[in-house]
């Protein structure tokens, strides 16, 4: 199994989710994060005191998939989260040793 961690633009979340459904992805976990990168932050103005916000709101998707699904899922995320503008985000893949479904105790890819 692999953990896919994707950092994307927040308003792309729904599109990504829709792109994953046909692949049979039945679960994922999402968090709100702040991203620091090449994309320039917006400038905020408080009582005239401008300051640049270096951290931009992003959404992090964590998704564990079977090895066989990996490629298709990464591809789907890449396509659906793409705008072509700076700040689109990244997809990172790492290894997962084991998984358990708490409700049933199933393990391995049964648990996904």
């Amino acid at each position, binding site marked *: 199994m692999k953990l896919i961690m994707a950092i994307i633009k927040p*308003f792309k979340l*729904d599109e990504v989710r829709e792109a994953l459904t046909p692949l049979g992805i039945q679960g994922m976990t999402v968090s709100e994060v702040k991203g620091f990168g090449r994309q320039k932050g*917006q*400038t*905020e*103005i*408080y009582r005239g005191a*401008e300051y640049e916000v270096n951290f931009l709101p992003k959404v992090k998707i964590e998704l564990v998939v079977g090895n066989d699904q990996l490629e298709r899922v990464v591809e789907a995320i890449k396509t659906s989260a793409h705008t072509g503008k700076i700040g689109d985000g990244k997809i990172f893949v790492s290894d997962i040793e084991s998984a358990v479904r708490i409700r049933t105790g199933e393990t391995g890819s049964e648990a996904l």
Partner: protein
Amino acid sequence: MGNAKKFFVTSAVSMAMFLSSAGMAFAEEAKLDSGDTAWMLTSTALVLMMTIPGLAMFYGGMVRKKNVLSMAMQNFATACLMTVLWMAIGYSLAFTDGGDLNAFVGGVDQAFLRGIGLNSLSGTIPESVFMTFQMTFAIITPALIIGSLVERMKFSAMLWFLGLWSLLVYAPIAHMVWGGGWLMGDGVQDFAGGTVVHINAGIAGLIAALMLGRRKGLGTQPMPPVNLAYTMIGAALLWVGWFGFNAGSALAANGTAGMAMAVTQIATGVAALAWMGIEWAVRGKPTLLGMSSGAVAGLVAITPAAGFVGMPGAFVIGLVAGLACFWTAVYMKPLLGYDDALDAFGVHAVGGTIGALLTGIFSAVILGGVGLSTHAGHSILVQLWIQAKGVGFTIVYDAIVTFIILKVLDWAMGLRVSEDDESEGLDIALHGEQLYE
């Protein structure tokens, strides 16, 4: 100072008082009454509170987080802009004698509030107080329209739109109904602004929503309200402030004001329960947003009726408004597909129309009211017809002029923000601020 105006004003908004002056110190020659003045000073503060922070919170809580400050900003800026425009010319257009055009609009004699001094009276209160009280109405009416424009209109275009609208639509309609124009002469009963304020704002909102188009993602993306506690605070402050709006429209601290307050309270309670109840029945859960919306619907509907109807009228008006506005906002809107985001039309135009028509019925003495307009024949049907004429004229005039203003602005500067700005949210895109990090 033209007494004509004072006479018109007084007779229009507190017709009822004349019928019940027994036991009251009636101002035969104009004389300041400190009690009436105290109440009108208070009412003015209450009505201002309705817009800021009331409406800003009510509307603000319902939009997405990325647009909440823009919503507050639009309300606040409207309050400031209308203050200046009303001083400059609006008051004069609404409440002075318009000479040849008097049937439709007032004159420019009191532009920049010329002639309002320490001793100017309007009825039993200082004219400065009457002018400021009316100013708070001229503020909230365009502010109500904002509910239809949310999350997508340019801030600059909005200022131009509401500014022009207040001079070209609000002031003339106010003149026609309250300031001595033809609808007033006809005997239209509009105690605190069913046509002038609510139908007027609601129709303009509908037109604007249609011309702006729907928000990006509507229907496909969830658009959760940023904070429903804000909406609840807003609804509550609207309710409290509405006492100034309705009971203040008696322009005195008397029995009419008292009845206006009592019926306002009752219609609002009934409407809120009605919306909550029907929602509970047909959708399974009673919601705070529903109950708040119902309360506002009740407040809107009782507005034209407040000084004219008794308890039976209050009850029926509240009930009908709660149910009908629920139906419009929840069933009709999705059906027709216009994006009147916060239901300026669904609540204000619909509620205002219900109130305006039912006023023509429940102001009859036989139904517990203070009596039909003396200008009209004595039958309910005649009064109902007069009311319908007032409603109809307002709708048509308002719709046409609003359409023209927006067309011109669209051509001149564009009405809508760019797609990117809409995605990012107006708070950051237009104002460089966000609610919180």
